[in-house]
C-alpha cells in the first residue's frame, strides 16, 4: 500500500472516530482468505452463513485471443483452464482482488429445461462465488435466463433447511426437532418396509420438479410398488394427450431455429417449458426471417415479440386452428404426399360412417365404401366436407380475434410448408375442458404441412430426448394404485394427482408413506384447503416425508422435512427435447467435485454440501438398503454395485456405469481427450449425441420386425397401434368416446367458452395460468434477485372492464369463483382481452409462523397469514403481515423494499378434471368481480368446501369410466404411456377377464 493511501486511510479513520458518523463499512474489510475450512471427511459448514471469498496473489492471465467470425471477444474461460482459473472480483474493481476458482459444470434446477451452469468455486475455501452458463452445454450454449444466476441465492439462502427435521406435536403446529439422518432413514425405512410387506400401493412418491430422468423411477420399480405420482395433471397432461392420440409421443419438439413460421399457443419466449433453449432458437429463427404467431388472450412477452398476436377467447383456439386447417384443405395447400403416406386415412375412411355426423357426408362416404376400395382422393374429399364449416368468419366470431389476423395466420402456415414449428405446452390445452383437442388440432397443421421431423418443422419429444439405461433394471411391478389412476379416467396423462384429497375424502384408499419431492401440493394445486385437510389427516396420510431444498407450505404439514440439494449440490442426469439434436447433461455437487479435484476425499455428497443437505440419489440408495436390509423383499439387490458385488452402489458408480455403457459415442469422445467417460462428464457436464435427427419415422424397418408398410417399404413409423399418424383414433372410439368431436381433430366446447360466461350478468373469465419469466414455480421466495423484480400478482383487467366496475390500478377487487373468493389489487392494461382477467402464477406464498431456527418461506417474501375455519365448511386465509425487511445473515434481507408479495389464488380454484385427459382445466369462471367492500383486505380468501365438493362431483360425472367402457376389461389402453408401466396383468380391471367385451 502506498504511503499516500495509508495516510488517507489513517485520516479517514481518525475523522470517522471524531465524527462518529462513519458507516459501519468505512473501513475496507480485510478480504484475505480465511483458513481453509476443509478437514478430511468433516462436513464443511454446519450453519448457514453468507460466503466470504478468498483472494490470491496470482493474476488473471489474458486469454488466448480467439477471433470469432463475427469479431466477438472470447467469452468463456477455456475448459483446459477450468481446474484453476483466476479472475478479478467485480465488486472490488478497480482494486484488483483476484480469486482462484475451480470451474465446475452442473445443470440448472430452476425449471425442467436442464440448462448448463458453470459454478465458480473458490479454491481457498470451496465457497461458490457465482453460477455462469456452461459453454459446453449443447442446448443452453452458455446462456441462461434470470433463474440460472439466482441459483446462488438459493444456495446461500439464510433460511435454508440444513438438517433433517421431525415433527413434534400435531401436524401443522410448526414444532420441529432436529434429528440425525440415520434416525430419519431408519424410521422412514421401517414404515416403508412395513407397508411394502402388506401391500404394493401404500408408498407414494409425489414429484413436483423431478430434475432428472429415470433414476427415481428405477428406485420405485425396485420397491415393486405402484408408487409414482406426479404433477403432470396440473401441468401438461392435456397437451400430452392430444399429441399422444396422434403419434404415441406426448410432446412436441419444434426446430425453431430453422423454421419459417412459428406458431405458439403459449408463451415460449418467457415461460415455455424449455424457456431459455427455446427462446434462443425462436429469436434465432425470427432473426433469420421466421414469422411468429402467438395465441394468447393476454399480451404475453411472447405475444409482444410476435409478428401476429391472436388474442383468442379461451376455448376457441381449436376453432382457429381448424379454420387454418380448413384453409389448407380447401385450397389444396397441404402436403398430399405426406398425408397419403403417413396418415391412417384408409382406417379413417372405413370407420367414417360410424362417426361422421353430417348426414349428407355420411351417405356420400357410405356410397363410396359400398363402391369398393376407397382411395386417398376420397379421404381428401372427406376432409373438405368435414372441415368446411370452419371458416375464418366463424373462427373470428368465436375467438373475438380480428378476421384478418386469422387469415394472415393461415397464410403464414401455408407458406411455411415443411418448416412449420409449433408448440403448446400448457396454456389453452391446460386451461380448457377439451383442451387436449387444442394440441391435437395444432399437430393437425404439422400433419397437413408434412412438417413432422423436418428441417424447421416439429419433432416429437421421443426423437430428441435420450434416457440411457442403468446397469440393471428392475422388472415391472404388478400393482395398480387406484389413487393414481382411478377408474374414471382411463386416458389420464398421467396420475390424477390433484384429486388426491378428494379421493382420500371419499375413502378410496390411504397412504402409508407419502413423499413429496420438490413439490408443494397444497399451494400449487387447485382447491388447496382440501389439501390442508388431507395433509392434516394422519389416518389417511400416515406419514408425510417432504424432500425439499426450501421451506414450502406443504412441508409445514409433514412428519419429516429432509433438506435436499439445489443445482450445485446433487447428481442427476437429464435430457430434454430442446432442438433437433439429442444431448444429455450431468448435474453435479460442485463443491464436492472441486474438492475431489484437489485430492480431498469425499465419500458422500453431504460432506461437501452446506449443513447436512443430502442429495436424493444417495438418499434413495440408503433408504432402499435400509428398507430391505437382508434382501428378503427383493429390493436390496437392485442397489448392489456393478463393480463391487455384494456392496451397496455409490452414486458415482451408478453414473459411471451409464456413461461407460449406455451413451453411444461418449466413451469414444472421452478417450479422444484422454478421459474416462465419467471424467468427461465431470469435466464438461454435457454430451451431445447427435446434432440433428430428422424424420426418424422414415427409417427403414422390416414389417416383420415391427415396421410399417409405406408404399411397399417397411419403415419405423410412429408408436401408435397403427404405427401411422392417427387422424381417426380407434382408441378413443373403443373406450367410449365415439362422437365425431372426439375421434378426429375437432373442437370441444370449453367450460369457459363465450356461451358459458354471462358477461352481461357480470361474469368474467379468470385466467390463472400465466407465468413470469424470472420466477420458479413455488421456489422463488428464497431467491432474492428474482423477487426483487417480480413479487406480486395483481388482477390484469381491461380498461373497459375496470371502468364498468369503477376500479383503477391499485384498487382492491373481489373475485369470486364457483367455490370462494379472493381480494387482490387491479392492474389496468390494454394488454388483456376484455371480459378476461388474468392473475399470474408463482406468487402469494405464505407462512403461518415467523422465522424460527429451522428456516422459513422467505420471511420477507411471503405473507404471515392466519388460517381459520368454521363448522359450516368455510375456510379462510387472511394476511396478518405482508412482506418486508428483516434481519438475517444476509444483509440484503434488511433491504427488502416491497410489501405486496401476492395473493394465493389457487385456493379459490375448483378442481376441473378433464373427462378425457384427466388434466386440471385451469381456467375459472369468475361468477362475480366487483370492487372490494370496505373492510376487505388484499389477500383475503374464503372457500366453501361444500361448493368445492359439488364442483368436483360435477366434473367427475362427465368422465367415462373404464369399468363401464373398457373394450377389453383393462383399466387403460396399454399402448398409451405411463411414467412407470406395471405388468400387463396389473392392467386388468378388478374381477374382469381379459377380452371381456365392452358393454
Amino acid at each position, binding site marked *: 500500500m502506498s504511503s499516500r493511501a495509508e495516510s488517507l486511510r489513517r485520516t479517514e479513520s481518525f475523522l470517522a472516530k471524531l465524527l462518529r458518523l462513519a458507516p459501519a463499512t468505512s473501513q475496507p474489510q480485510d478480504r484475505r482468505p480465511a483458513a481453509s475450512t476443509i478437514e478430511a471427511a468433516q462436513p464443511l459448514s454446519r450453519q448457514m452463513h453468507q460466503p466470504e471469498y478468498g483472494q490470491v496473489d496470482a493474476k488473471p492471465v489474458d486469454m488466448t485471443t480467439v477471433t470469432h467470425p463475427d469479431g466477438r471477444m472470447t467469452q468463456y474461460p477455456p475448459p483446459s483452464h477450468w481446474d484453476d482459473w483466476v479472475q478479478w472480483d467485480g465488486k472490488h474493481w478497480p482494486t484488483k482482488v483476484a480469486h482462484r476458482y475451480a470451474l465446475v459444470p452442473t445443470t440448472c434446477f430452476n425449471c425442467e429445461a436442464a440448462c448448463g451452469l458453470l459454478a465458480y468455486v473458490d479454491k481457498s475455501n470451496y465457497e461458490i462465488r457465482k453460477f*455462469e452458463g456452461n459453454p459446453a452445454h449443447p442446448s443452453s450454449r452458455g446462456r441462461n*435466463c*434470470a433463474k440460472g444466476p439466482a441459483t446462488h441465492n438459493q444456495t446461500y439462502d439464510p433460511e435454508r433447511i440444513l438438517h433433517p427435521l421431525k415433527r413434534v406435536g400435531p401436524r401443522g403446529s410448526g414444532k420441529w426437532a432436529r434429528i440425525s439422518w440415520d434416525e430419519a432413514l431408519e424410521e422412514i425405512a421401517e414404515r416403508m418396509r412395513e407397508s411394502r410387506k402388506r401391500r404394493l400401493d401404500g408408498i407414494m412418491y409425489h414429484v413436483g420438479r423431478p430434475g432428472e430422468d429415470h433414476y427415481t423411477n428405477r428406485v420405485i420399480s425396485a420397491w415393486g410398488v405402484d408408487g409414482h405420482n406426479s404433477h403432470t395433471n396440473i401441468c401438461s397432461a392435456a397437451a400430452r394427450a392430444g399429441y399422444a392420440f396422434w403419434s404415441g409421443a406426448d410432446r412436441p419438439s419444434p426446430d425453431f431455429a430453422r423454421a419459417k413460421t412459428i406458431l405458439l399457443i403459449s408463451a415460449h419466449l418467457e415461460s415455455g417449458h424449455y424457456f431459455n433453449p427455446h427462446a434462443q432458437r425462436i429469436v434465432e429463427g425470427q432473426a433469420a426471417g421466421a414469422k411468429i404467431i402467438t395465441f394468447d388472450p393476454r399480451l404475453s412477452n411472447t405475444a409482444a415479440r410476435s409478428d401476429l398476436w391472436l388474442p383468442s377467447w379461451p376455448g376457441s383456439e381449436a376453432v382457429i386452428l381448424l379454420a387454418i386447417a380448413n384453409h389448407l384443405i380447401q385450397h389444396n395447400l397441404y402436403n398430399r404426399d405426406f398425408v397419403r403416406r403417413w396418415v391412417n386415412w384408409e382406417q379413417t375412411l372405413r370407420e367414417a360412417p360410424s362417426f361422421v355426423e353430417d348426414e349428407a357426408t355420411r351417405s356420400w362416404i357410405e356410397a363410396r365404401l359400398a363402391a369398393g376400395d376407397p382411395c386417398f382422393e376420397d379421404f381428401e374429399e372427406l376432409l373438405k366436407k368435414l372441415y368446411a364449416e370452419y371458416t375464418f368468419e366463424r373462427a373470428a366470431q368465436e375467438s373475438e*380475434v380480428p378476421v384478418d389476423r386469422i387469415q394472415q395466420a393461415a397464410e403464414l402456415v401455408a407458406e411455411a410448408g415443411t418448416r412449420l414449428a409449433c408448440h403448446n405446452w400448457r396454456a389453452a390445452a391446460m386451461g380448457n375442458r377439451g383442451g387436449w383437442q387444442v394440441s391435437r388440432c395444432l399437430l393437425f397443421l404439422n400433419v397437413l404441412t408434412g412438417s413432422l421431423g423436418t428441417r424447421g418443422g416439429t419433432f416429437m419429444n421421443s426423437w430428441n430426448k435420450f434416457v440411457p439405461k442403468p446397469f440393471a433394471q428392475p422388472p415391472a411391478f404388478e400393482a395398480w394404485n387406484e389413487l393414481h389412476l382411478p377408474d374414471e379416467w382411463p386416458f389420464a396423462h398421467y396420475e390424477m394427482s390433484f384429486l388426491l384429497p378428494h379421493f382420500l375424502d371419499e375413502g378410496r384408499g390411504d397412504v402409508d408413506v407419502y413423499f413429496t419431492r420438490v413439490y408443494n401440493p397444497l399451494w400449487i394445486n387447485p382447491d388447496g384447503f382440501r389439501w390442508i385437510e388431507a395433509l392434516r389427516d394422519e389416518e389417511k396420510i400416515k406419514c408425510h416425508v417432504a424432500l425439499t431444498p426450501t421451506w414450502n407450505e406443504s412441508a409445514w404439514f409433514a412428519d419429516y422435512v429432509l433438506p435436499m440439494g439445489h443445482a450445485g449440490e446433487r447428481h442427476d442426469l437429464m435430457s430434454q427435447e430442446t432442438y433437433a439434436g439429442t444431448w444429455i447433461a450431468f448435474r453435479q455437487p460442485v463443491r464436492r467435485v472441486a474438492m475431489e479435484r484437489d485430492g480431498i476425499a469425499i465419500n458422500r455428497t453431504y460432506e461437501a454440501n452446506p449443513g447436512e443437505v443430502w442429495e436424493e440419489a444417495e438418499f434413495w440408495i440408503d433408504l432402499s438398503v435400509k428398507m430391505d436390509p437382508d434382501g428378503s423383499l427383493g429390493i436390496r439387490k437392485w442397489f448392489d454395485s456393478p463393480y463391487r458385488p455384494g456392496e451397496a452402489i455409490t452414486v458415482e458408480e451408478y453414473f459411471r456405469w451409464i456413461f461407460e455403457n449406455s451413451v453411444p459415442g461418449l466413451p469414444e469422445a472421452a478417450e479422444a481427450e484422454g478421459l474416462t467417460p465419467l471424467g468427461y462428464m465431470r469435466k464438461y457436464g454435457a454430451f451431445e449425441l447427435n446434432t440433428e435427427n430428422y424424420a426418424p419415422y422414415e427409417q427403414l424397418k422390416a414389417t416383420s420386425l415391427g415396421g410399417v408398410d409405406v408404399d411397399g417399404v417397411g419403415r419405423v413409423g410412429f408408436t401408435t397401434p397403427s404405427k401411422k399418424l392417427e387422424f381417426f383414433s380407434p382408441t378413443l372410439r373403443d373406450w367410449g368416446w365415439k362422437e365425431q368431436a372426439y375421434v378426429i381433430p375437432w373442437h370441444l366446447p370449453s367450460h369457459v367458452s363465450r356461451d358459458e360466461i354471462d358477461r352481461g350478468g357480470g361474469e368474467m373469465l379468470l385466467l390463472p395460468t400465466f407465468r413470469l419469466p424470472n420466477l420458479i414455480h413455488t421456489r422463488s421466495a428464497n431467491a432474492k434477485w428474482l423477487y426483487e423484480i417480480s413479487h406480486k400478482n395483481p388482477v390484469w383487467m381491461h380498461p373497459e372492464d375496470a371502468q364498468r366496475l369503477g376500479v383503477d390500478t*391499485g384498487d382492491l377487487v373481489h373475485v369470486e369463483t364457483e367455490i370462494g373468493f379472493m381480494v387482490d389489487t387491479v392492474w*389496468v392494461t390494454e*394488454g388483456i382481452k376484455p371480459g378476461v382477467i388474468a392473475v399470474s402464477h408463482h406468487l402469494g406464498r405464505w407462512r403461518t409462523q415467523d422465522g424460527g431456527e429451522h428456516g422459513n418461506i422467505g420471511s420477507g417474501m411471503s405473507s404471515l397469514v392466519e388460517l381459520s375455519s368454521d363448522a359450516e365448511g368455510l375456510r379462510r386465509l387472511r394476511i396478518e403481515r405482508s412482506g418486508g425487511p428483516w434481519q438475517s445473515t444476509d444483509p440484503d434481507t434488511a433491504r427488502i423494499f416491497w410489501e405486496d408479495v401476492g395473493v394465493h389464488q389457487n385456493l379459490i380454484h375448483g378442481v376441473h378434471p378433464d373427462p378425457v385427459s384427466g388434466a386440471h382445466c385451469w381456467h375459472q369462471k369468475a361468477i362475480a368481480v366487483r370492487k372490494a367492500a370496505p373492510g376487505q383486505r388484499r389477500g383475503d380468501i374464503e372457500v366453501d368446501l361444500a361448493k368445492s365438493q359439488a364442483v368436483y362431483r360435477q366434473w367427475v360425472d362427465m368422465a367415462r369410466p373404464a369399468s363401464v367402457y373398457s373394450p377389453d376389461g383393462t383399466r387403460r389402453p396399454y399402448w398409451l404411456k405411463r411414467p412407470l408401466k406395471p405388468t400387463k396383468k396389473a392392467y386388468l380391471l378388478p374381477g374382469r377377464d381379459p377380452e371381456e367385451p365392452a358393454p
Partner: protein
Amino acid sequence: MQSYGFIINNERCIGCHACSTACKSENSVPLGVHRTWVKSTETGIYPDTQRHFQVTRCNHCDNPPCVRICPTGAMRQMDNGIVEFDGNACIGCKACMQACPYDSIYIDPETNTAAKCHYCSHRVSVGMEPACVVVCPAHAIIAGDIADPDSEIARTLSRAKVTVRKPEQGTAPKLFYIAGSDVNLHPTVTERRPLTFAAADALPAPGGAPPREHDQPRANGDARRLPQLQGLPEHGPLRLGGRQAQHMAQVGYNAQHRVPWHWQVPAYLVTKAIGAGVWMLLALAWLLDLASYETSTAIYGGAVALLMMTLTTAFLVLDLERPDRFLYILLRPQWRSWLARGSVLLIGYSTLLGLYWGLETLGHLGVMSVDLTTYRPAWLLVLGLFGTGVAIYTAFLFGQAEGRDLWQNPLLPIHLVLQATMMGAAALWMAESFGVLNSELSSVVRWTLGSCLLADLFVILLGEFGMSHASEVAARAAHEISGGRFRHIFWGGAIVVGHALPLLLLTVATPAAQIGAAIFVTAGLYAYEYAFVMAPQEIPNA
C-alpha cells in the same frame, strides 16, 4: 484508441431479466439498487397493444458529465472509453447522480459510495465479455470496441438504425438501441411516479400518490377512456410534450431511484448566502465609502459570516454518504469539478475572513495592538471578491449537473449574487436592532434589502418562472415548483414569507420588525431553495 460501447437490440430482447440477475451475481449488487435493469412499457389500444423492453444502464458516454463533476476523480473515463468508478476514492457527495441524465448511478448501501455499470472492466481487461452479454439468451446485447471496424458492434452500428437516450444532453452516449422505443427512451412520456408496476411494488411517491385523471366524456357524450396520465403534469393546464393520443402508455417495470440530495443542500445554500453576502455588502459599502468603517460592525459581520461558513461546511459534510472522507476533496481534487473548486473558495474565504476577524477582534479587545487601516481596502477587496466567488460557484456546480435541467440556468450566477446580497443585508438588518450599525450603514442595508427583495422577486417571477424553459424536463420541474407539489412551499414560503412580509416590515423601524424581517427572508430563501433543489430531482431520468 479503443472505445467500448454497447448495442441493445430490441428486436431480439425478450425481457427475461437474465442480464439483471447476471449482473447482480457478477458484481455482488445489493438489493434495491441496479447496475442494469429491463424497463418495460405497454402501449396501444387492445388488440393493437405492444410491450416494449429496454435494457437500461450506464451509457459509458464519450463526454461523461459524471466524470467532470466528480470532486475526487472516483468517476473516471478510461483510455478504452469505459467510464469506471473507484469506490475507494468516492466521498459519497452524489454529485455524479445529479450529473447523470440517465439515472444510471446509485449509492451502494454496503460501501456508501457511488456505483454503476463498469462494463465488467474486470472481465474485459482479460478478454472476457461483460456478464450480461454472456448470459443473454437472445444475444440482444452486443459489447465491443466501436473503434475497431472489424468488431461485431462496429459492423452492426454501421448498418443498423440506432438511437440513444437523450442525445440533447451532449453526453455522446455509447449505448445504442436498435429499434429503441420512444416510450422507454423518454421517461416523461409515461406517468412520472407510477403507483405500481405490473408485478412489483413501486416506491411510494414523495408527497403521496398523485391524483388521477379520470374519464371525461367525448363531445358527443360517449365515454372516452384515458387509461393513464400521458405526459401531463399534475394540477394545471400546461401540456408539456408527451403523448396526446388517447391510448395507453404505462410503465410495466422500471428500476426505482431515490432522491440523492435532501434538506442539507438547501440549508447549505442559505447559510452560504448569508456567510458570503454579509461581507459582499460590507466590503462594497465601505470601499465605496457609502458608510464609514466601524470595527464593531466588522466584528459582528465577521462573527456572523464565520458562523455561517461553519454551518455551511457542516451541512456539506452531513450530506456526504462518506463524511469521514470529506478531506479527499482537498487531498485528491479533480479540478474540473466545481465541487473541488468551490471547496477551495469556501476554505480560502473562511481562512482569510477568520484571519481578518481575528486580528480585528484581538485589536478591539486590546490583547494586541493591530492597525489594519493601511491594508484595510485591500482586505475588503479580497474578502468581497472571495465572498462573491463563494456565492456564485454553486451556479457552476449546478451547471455541471446535466441531469437537472432546471438548475442549468444562465440566470443562476446573477441570482445567487442577488440572493447573497439580500441575505447579507438581512443579517445586517438584524444587527441594526442591536444598534451595531451606524446610521449610514443602516440606511444602505435597508435600501439594499428592499431593492434586493424586489429584484429577487423580479428574477424569480419573471425570470425563473415567467420564461419558457429550454427543455421539457426543466419546464416540468419549474411547473412542479410553481404549480405542483411544491406550490405551497413556493408561493407561501418563498414569495409571501420570503418577500412580501419582509418588504412590509421594512417600512416599520422597530427592533422586532427588523429581527422579523431577517428571519422571514431567511425562511423564505430556505423554502425557495428547498423547492429549487428537490423538484428537479423528482423528474425521472430513466
